[in-house]
């Protein structure tokens, strides 16, 4: 089969190249951008004569490469929207334009101005060209010669079908094909002198030497002078520094370079950049840059961690003596795309991100494909050096995406963090580390993360996955490695169970061991909730404290080289954990006794983690209170942090701040107007504890799972399915745009279906109000969930969470309304009709003759009401 030949519009060139073919991507490397239009215009004219469709992809600031006439379709793209969005938009254009279309692109070198790195340029090329090839298009691209890294050019060369250098020697233009795929002649790759009549190959050796010496002066230089700011800005700042000059921000040039470096490392969020610019010196930024593996931004989580530490090291709130040293590394966001591109995962990601959320099984398959992916040798070399640096210290590989932990989005728990116990020989440690990175990368396609992005309108946002590699804080105890203390701390307290607790003063969820037990939902095991304003208070009393304490500990088992969860008693056997007396109370004679010395050699089963001495006899809580206030003050917004800490024998507290992000709470910006004088019969229920704020009005539908019926339901298959039915109802198109209140027994999302309806966050993330009902059943009042990771999802999505105790007279629970309402479940989702006995969908206006439900939740006064109006 012969491939049809396409004209370049220049006969000499056609002769040299033996013509173009459908599928060719042609890259022109030019010294001077003015040379590119010569070839592009000739190509376009010929194409138009042959009635080809021509699309000009316009994105650079330089003058138009070809005249923007009516015969040509111009598609404008904005590189400032970021690599991810740019590529996705271009992909859509290519998909829409279809087969055998001819393209001309602006100079690709312009992209690095906005994207910062050659790596992304190469990634762009590597994902775009194969798609164009598939569609039998012909595309012209330009690059500025000798201004990009060898590695980037090598990748472009590997990908493209045709690569041609255009340069001038003594004013004479030469054209030299460097690659012409599947075509060959004895003169094809020689320099060709361009004249009006014909192009002449340079055959004589002395001529050739002169031309080549001039054109390729830096051909084998190890580090070409890339124009990509990632390299150039760094180079210039380092040069200033090496020259012994002060990197004063008074100098406009240095200030500009700093801002550029900040943008490349931290992104474009104006509020965040302002904070970074005011807290980081140039030297700090260069130090961060030196710890970036690959190129690109360090992502939101890493940025939040670094910024918070900087804020707290400033004079006025100087906690530098309190902090453990920070020696994290950052895997730049470009590495993520390089991985996707090299392993043919970019288009898969695009499809998944824009299509329906993958099922659990589909995601497992996606994860497997990521695990099968490979990194370039150069990257592996850097990873090896990183692991050499850490030796056998355990590390954690944490997602740090662009959107993560930014103002308005936390992505809490959406992306993955993987511990590496980091034991074994270097090869084993490398394998573990690579696996962790791949799993974090795959988590970008986690259904929960995609649902979260969709819900917050972030599907089209530039989302790239950087990685934060942190040394795990802690010490070795027996065969285990873990921190003494870990947890999350909020600058506001939304878990105030008593009027004595000041919600403005923050809260700490504290655990012994790795913080995973404080961050994640862990059923039937409890972190210690510390109210900063009243640290000694707790919502339990007496032996209930034992029940509502931490019974298991997450730690790294160095022998097993793995993250494990062990019973506390096993870890505390022997009672020789340092300063244990600060963490435990002793179960003695049927009551909890706080230690009066350091001896904790009792049977480990009698030790209960209360953190009593820590809270009452060290500076721990007040220190956190001050730090949280300081962070909130600097951020100008409530914050949410993750930390590890330890206390030595002198009760000196040392903290490692792992993460800091803005805490989004609806209703916090202004007081909620609370309705008064609502007629009793119009009240559906009230709540008066542990509520976050918000106002939801009007509510057209209520999804109601009756606690009694749920409790009596014996058919486990039906019981397990109720969660997905709730999800189907909430996602039903008829309810899109409506506000829905969802209420059910006990803990939503509990791993035990006896404790609550089995839902994932993706099932219920479109409800506006989530109610957990603690209705007495057979003498038992089921517990509701509080202070869990899931709860924070609700808070951040502006979903009002309310615990309701229907048997409490103060709840004014409207039993008659919920007793036997008309159920529109079967009308809405006919296939769910068999579940109608347990799950009711109440059309509020239909049920009430036109009234609608409204919820007002006032977090400051801890009161909420749902009423009809």
């Amino acid at each position, binding site marked *: 089969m012969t491939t049809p030949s396409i004209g370049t519009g220049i006969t000499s060139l056609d002769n040299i190249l033996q013509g173009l073919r459908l599928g060719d991507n042609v890259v022109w490397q030019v010294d001077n951008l003015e040379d590119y239009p010569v070839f592009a215009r000739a190509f376009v004219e010929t194409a138009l004569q042959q009635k080809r469709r021509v699309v000009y992809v316009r994105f650079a600031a330089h003058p138009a490469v070809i005249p923007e006439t009516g015969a040509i379709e111009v598609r404008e793209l904005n590189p400032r929207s970021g690599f991810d969005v740019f590529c996705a938009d271009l992909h859509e254009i290519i998909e829409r334009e279809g087969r055998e279309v001819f393209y001309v692109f602006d100079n690709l070198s312009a992209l690095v101005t906005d994207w910062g790195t050659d790596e992304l340029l190469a990634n762009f090329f590597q994902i775009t060209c194969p798609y164009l090839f598939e569609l039998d298009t012909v595309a012209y691209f330009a690059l500025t010669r000798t201004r990009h890294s060898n590695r980037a050019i090598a990748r472009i060369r590997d990908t493209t079908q045709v690569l041609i250098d255009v340069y001038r020697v003594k004013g004479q233009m030469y054209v030299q094909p460097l690659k012409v795929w599947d075509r060959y002649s004895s003169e094809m790759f020689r320099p060709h002198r361009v004249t009006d009549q014909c192009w002449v190959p340079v055959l004589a050796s002395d001529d050739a030497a002169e031309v080549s010496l001039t054109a390729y002066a830096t051909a084998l230089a190890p580090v070409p002078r890339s124009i990509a700011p990632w390299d150039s800005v760094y180079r210039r700042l380092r040069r200033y520094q090496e020259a012994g000059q002060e990197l004063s921000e008074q100098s406009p040039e240095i200030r500009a370079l700093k801002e550029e470096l900040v943008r490349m490392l931290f992104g474009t969020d104006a509020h965040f950049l302002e904070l970074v610019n005011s807290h980081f010196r140039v030297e700090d930024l260069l130090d961060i840059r030196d710890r970036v593996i690959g190129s690109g931004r360090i992502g939101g989580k890493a940025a939040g961690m670094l910024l918070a530490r900087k804020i707290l090291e400033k004079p006025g709130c100087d906690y530098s003596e309190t902090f453990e040293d920070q020696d994290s590394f950052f895997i730049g966001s470009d590495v993520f795309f390089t991985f996707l591109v090299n392993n043919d995962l970019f288009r898969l990601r695009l499809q998944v991100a824009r299509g329906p959320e993958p099922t659990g099984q589909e995601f497992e398959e996606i994860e497997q494909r990521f695990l099968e992916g490979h990194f370039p040798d150069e990257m592996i070399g850097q990873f090896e050096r990183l692991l050499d640096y850490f030796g056998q210290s355990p590390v954690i590989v944490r997602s740090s995406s662009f959107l993560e932990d930014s103002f308005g989005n936390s992505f809490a728990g959406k992306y993955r963090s993987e511990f590496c116990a980091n034991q074994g020989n270097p090869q084993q440690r490398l394998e573990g580390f690579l696996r962790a990175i791949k799993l974090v990368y795959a988590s970008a396609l986690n259904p929960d993360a995609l649902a979260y992005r969709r819900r917050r309108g972030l599907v089209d946002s530039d989302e790239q996955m950087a990685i934060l590699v942190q040394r795990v804080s802690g010490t070795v105890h027996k065969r285990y490695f873990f921190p003494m203390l870990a947890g999350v701390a909020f600058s506001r307290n939304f878990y105030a169970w008593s009027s004595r607790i000041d919600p403005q003063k923050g809260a700490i969820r504290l655990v012994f061991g790795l913080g995973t037990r404080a961050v994640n939902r862990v059923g*039937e095991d409890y972190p210690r909730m510390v109210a900063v304003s009243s640290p000694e208070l*707790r919502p339990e009393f007496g032996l209930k404290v034992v*029940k509502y304490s931490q019974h298991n500990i997450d730690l790294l088992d160095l022998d097993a080289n793995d993250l494990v969860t062990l019973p506390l008693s096993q870890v505390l056997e022997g009672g020789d954990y340092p300063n244990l007396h600060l963490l435990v109370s002793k179960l003695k004679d049927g009551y909890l*006794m*706080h230690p009066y010395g350091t001896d904790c050699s009792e049977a480990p089963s009698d030790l209960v983690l209360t953190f009593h001495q820590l809270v*009452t006899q060290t500076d721990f809580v007040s220190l956190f209170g001050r730090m949280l206030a300081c962070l909130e003050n600097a951020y100008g917004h409530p914050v949410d942090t993750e930390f590890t800490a330890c206390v030595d024998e002198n009760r000196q507290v040392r903290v490692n701040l792992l993460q800091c992000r803005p805490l989004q709470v609806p209703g916090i910006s202004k007081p909620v107007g609370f309705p008064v004088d609502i007629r009793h019969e119009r009240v559906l229920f009230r709540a008066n504890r542990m509520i976050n704020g918000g106002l939801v009005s009007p509510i057209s539908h209520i999804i109601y799972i009756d606690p009694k019926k749920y409790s009596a339901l014996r058919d486990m298959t039906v019981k397990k399915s109720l969660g997905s039915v709730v999800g189907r109802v909430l996602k039903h198109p008829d309810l899109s745009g409506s506000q829905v209140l969802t209420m059910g027994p006990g803990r939503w999302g509990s791993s035990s279906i*006896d404790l609550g309806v089995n839902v994932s966050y993706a099932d219920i993330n479109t409800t506006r109000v989530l109610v957990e009902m603690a209705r007495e*059943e*057979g*003498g038992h009042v089921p517990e509701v969930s509080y202070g869990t990771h899931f709860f924070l999802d609700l808070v951040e999505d502006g979903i009002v969470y309310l615990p309701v105790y229907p048997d409490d007279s103060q709840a004014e629970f409207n039993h008659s309304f919920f007793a036997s309402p008309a159920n529109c479940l079967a009308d809405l989702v006919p296939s769910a009709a068999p579940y109608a006995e347990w799950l009711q969908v109440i059309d509020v206006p239909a049920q009430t003759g036109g009234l609608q439900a409204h919820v007002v939740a006032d977090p400051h006064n801890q009161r909420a009401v749902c009423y009809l109006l």
Partner: protein
Amino acid sequence: MDETNQNQTEAQTKLNPFEMALKNFELAADLLGLDTEIRNQIRLPERELTVHFPVKMRDGKFKVFTGYRVQHSTARGPAKGGIRYHPDVTLDEVKALASWMTYKCATVNIPYGGAKGGVICNPKELNDFELEHMTRRYTSEISCIIGPTKDIPAPDVYTNAQTMAWMMDTYSMARGEYCPGVVTGKPLAIGGSKGRNEATARGCVFVIAEAAKHLQIPLKGARVAIQGFGNAGAISAQLIHDNYDAKVIAVSDSRGAVFCENGFDPHRAIEHKQRTGSVVGLAGTETIPGDAILTLDCDILIPAALENVITPCVANSVKAKIVAEAANGPTVPDADTVLDQKGVFVLPDILANAGGVTVSYFEWVQNNSGLYWTEDEVNARLKQIIVTAFEEVLLASQKYKVNMRRAAWARALDRVAEALKVRGIYP
């Protein structure tokens, strides 16, 4: 530990047992044909003290609390009863609970009258410093009527051994002498008794063993279901399994119940609950709804959690041959009739859970004598008292041809009435 019941819960305190106590009292008085004068003398408490006292809080502010101490009867000995801290404490409730203590002590024939006390407060809103100061001031306020030979408080809802230690210390400091006998339920380090922690469960199991013997139900292999897996429930399960070879087929807690037709080792359930916070999910068991445990096909049912769980409707479906009330008031009065009709042998709470107050008595005896017993001694004496009490209640039941509850109340009331009668009226 609460000597009314070691498993008092918050939910319980919301229910006023006054009506139940009054109903039982009237029934027993009728059975005995008690004189109106004696009835009137017993019906009302001897002494009611209300105190209002300030406490300096951690933040430097003062807060005024209200507390009570009610002595229902001192006819048979010094008053005895717990002190509870709860926002819902009322004088009426304290009065009712004080009378209950009179009958419970009389049922097992320990030389005490009945009392109760309480402070209106929410301990969840008080730190240790404030709790201690409140306790000390309250102790000081009621010290005019308490004492080792007058009235001996003990732990109850939201009070514990630490609270008793503070009370004992306050009282001792004020008197200028060591007075361990002023309260019971103290830590072992300052005169608490061995065996007290297990006393309620141990007493309950002793009485079950006697009932089984009487009913000729072999305990070996007997099927036992236990509602509630706190102190009393869990230890009862252990004791009846370990000491009598009974088969524990189901246990429950606030999160649900687990069931295994062939029985399971309760030690595994305890370990599982310690590890996971609940019995639910115990390997080798099936999870069933919490209230289903009451109607399981079993020989012995031990309600060890909450009040009012055996309603007439539930009673209709109870299949157990013996119901041992380790909890206070698990059976509503109307359900008693249903259980009687079905021939269920009910061991009433004032007998079945009197082990706690009995070992409190032992603690007081040891404090007064200065001679402390081994745990075996404590348990042996407990058995002796409980077995005797059972036999006496059973005799009364046969004599009056009434169920064990009415018999126990009648036996208790008879003892109180007799004491009043022989002591006569002062002056």
